[in-house]
């Protein structure tokens, strides 16, 4: 028996098409916000208020000529962007978006670890795509990507364990659902540190090092053209939405919020989109307001400040949850 509802959920809502449209919309929000903070207007011509601009960029890139440099390693060069994109979308499918995940299940115990692992694999594939382009800029940039995301993965995992500890489970669904009081209020230190570590994982300012235009031309994307470049850009954008969605699930109570009338699924998706937008706006503010740090400053910030702070935050949360909150 073909389960049409399941196929519809995977392909349209809250699956692939919904994630794609949400990504393009968040891209537009980012560009407009950055333009406004810089005293400018941003995209205006493509569609009303420029809202179709990311879509126009994507379609244009799909129809460009595909060039493969002679020195590139062919298989990795061809498939790395597409596989990275697929893995990111697949990771998004585990998050409860409208009260349940895409597969309309309640997940399984431990899927927090699984989706964090998927995001690491996707970043690793991005590194490989730069490595395989046969360009010195790509090589140096991908080395920076690897050092940065491997370094910041450790505090990220530790900080993601904080809500898991408070909820008492490693399942995303349980963590999101057991937030009668959102964990941002119960463990605000973990939220702040998680946002900083997420900013570094997503390679946005001030941790923008691998994408440093002024030194490394195009970074790891230098040799990519056409459809592969479109998917590289999309992977980056889906990573941003994924990061925001993770913050929403872990700290802001997921899609759960007041239901006023009608279908709870509709209200849950609305709250989800609004919360994701709020986090995207906060990360874009931080991006616009800071300069770019050097790679050694980024790494020393990680090993000297963020990682010890993450360990301390976990210890603090364990102490407070075990001894203080039961008294309250």
């Amino acid at each position, binding site marked *: 028996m073909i389960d049409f509802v399941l196929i519809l959920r995977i392909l349209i809502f809250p699956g692939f098409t919904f994630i794609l449209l949400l990504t393009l919309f968040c891209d537009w929000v980012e560009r407009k916000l*950055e333009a406004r903070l810089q005293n400018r207007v941003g995209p205006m011509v493509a569609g009303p208020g420029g809202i179709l601009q990311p879509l126009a960029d994507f379609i244009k890139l799909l129809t460009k000529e595909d060039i493969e440099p002679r020195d590139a390693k062919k298989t990795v060069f061809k498939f790395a962007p597409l596989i990275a994109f697929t893995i990111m979308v697949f990771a998004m499918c585990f998050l409860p978006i409208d009260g349940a995940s895409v597969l309309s299940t309640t997940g399984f115990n431990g899927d927090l670890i699984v989706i964090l692992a998927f995001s690491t694999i996707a970043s690793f594939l991005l590194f490989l795509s730069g490595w395989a382009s046969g360009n010195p800029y790509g090589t140096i940039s991908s080395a920076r990507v690897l050092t940065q995301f491997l370094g910041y993965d450790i505090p990220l995992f530790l900080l993601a364990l904080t809500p898991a500890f408070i909820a008492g489970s490693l399942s995303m669904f349980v963590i999101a659902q057991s937030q009668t009081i959102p964990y941002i209020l119960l463990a605000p230190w973990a939220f702040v540190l998680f946002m900083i570590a997420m900013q570094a994982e997503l390679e946005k300012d001030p941790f*923008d090092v691998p994408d440093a235009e002024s030194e490394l031309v195009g970074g790891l994307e230098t040799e990519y053209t056409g459809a592969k470049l479109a998917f590289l850009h999309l992977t980056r954008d889906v990573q941003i939405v994924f990061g925001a969605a993770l913050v929403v699930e872990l700290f802001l109570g997921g899609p759960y919020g007041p239901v006023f009338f009608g279908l709870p699924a509709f209200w849950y998706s609305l709250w989800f989109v609004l919360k994701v937008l709020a986090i995207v706006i906060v990360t874009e503010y931080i991006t*616009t307001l800071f300069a770019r740090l050097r790679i050694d400053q980024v790494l020393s910030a990680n090993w000297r400040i963020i990682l010890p702070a993450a360990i301390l935050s976990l210890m603090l949360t364990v102490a407070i949850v075990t001894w203080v909150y039961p008294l309250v």
Partner: protein
Amino acid sequence: MPKSEIDIISVIESKLKDKVQIQLGHLGTAAIKTSNGLHRDVLKAILEVDEKTGITAITGLDLGANIGLLYHTHTAKGFFGICTEVPKGNPKIQTIIDIIPGAALHELEVADLLGVVFEGNPSPRHFLLSEYWPQGVYPLRKDVKANEVKLNPASAEENKPPATGRLVKLIIGPQHPALLEPEKFSVTVDGEIVTKVEPRLGYVHRGIEKAAESRTYVQDIYLVERVCGICNPCHAYGFVGAVEKILKTDVPPRAKYLRVIALELNRLHSHLLTLGHAGLEIGYETLFQYFWRDREPIMDLIELTSGNRVYGSLMTIGGVRRDLKESDAPKIKTVLADLRKKVPFYKKLYQDERSIRARMQDVGVLSREDAIKLCVVGPVARASGYDIDVRKDFPYEVYGEIPFKEIGYTTGDTWARMNVRMDEIEESINIIEYALDHLPTGPIRVQTSRYVPEGEAVCCVEAPRGELFYYVKGNGTVSPERVKIRTPTFANIPSFLQTAIGENIADIPPNFVSLDPCFSCTDR
């Protein structure tokens, strides 16, 4: 210091009595004519008296049977020209880079364009000319015609294989988002640390000095202006000032004040440009957008005074072309008052913003001794504690009458250079307001003759990037015999080659932009 009180001329006269001929008032403070080989002794004598001696330029002249070499030297007290000659058949002369290391690039240029061989400073390949240029043809010699030179086909000499082993050779340019202009820097890196920087200049070499010899003086103003789109009034003024010195014209005072206003407006827009560009290099796009937003009213002012946003061509021989209306002065003052209100915000940003300081402090440090030895000019020198400013040392136009401060910092890093430029913005606003308040009435221009008599003159201008030097030689016709331009970036590049070593790759863009490089000026 008692040493600087000693007259340099009397020292030279006492040391090298019969071997030199001194002509006072010519080519600056004095022109010292000597024979081949003795230029080193004259330089050593000057260096002993004044430690702040540096080479401004080395001009090569085609004098028929000989090639004349003029070593233009600047000291704290005066500007000297040391003249020698070498025969064309055997153009060999001893180098001076052991006395003054900053003269290395000047000698390479003369070797490339005129064919003089400097013993001790070999030039293995073309410096400014392209790799297709045939050997043995020297464009600045009078017998070479511009459209009769046959070019070689492309050779594989320039495309050397990258360094092997741990060292990776990273090539920055000619097409690079950090540089607005094409230049090639081969940076050898070990991991992330730079070990060597080799520049290849000449991508923007358009042969302006040669072209100036075949156009009239008035046409040359428009040609020479287009050496650089950012500091163009300074180039125009340098040329015009040198020609007026040969003609011995008296420029009316109103024209002098208008020239000062144009030069200072140019300094304002150029400093705002650099400060914004530095923001782009450190990844701070917001700062870039803010600075360039504040630059636009200044461009409107430049258009108001000269008629065009970029190439106003306000200067002409004998004065200026356009007058300032009475109703324009309040407009200028309103815009400047607006800019003055914004300067404290930017200063606070540079002082307090942690990410700017993290990227810019202790990056590209140049000590005072190195600055003097390498003959750097402009804000780069003033940030290292080497206080040279043509407006204060050899005042031109009405800078002697206008009170303003000379800005100096001592740390010598990128952050100090940016702060120097920020403070100079305030001083420029003060100068323009003073000039507007004291603008005399009268004519703006005097008529001059088309035929410039035989003679030579030099003119130094403080461009936004540093000291700009012009040497013009007239020969009685409507075209100049020789025009020599020495731009400030040309003097500052050796300092970059030294300060980049030992730093991260990520430090190269801010270090580079803090020099305020203008390669169209360097290559001409």
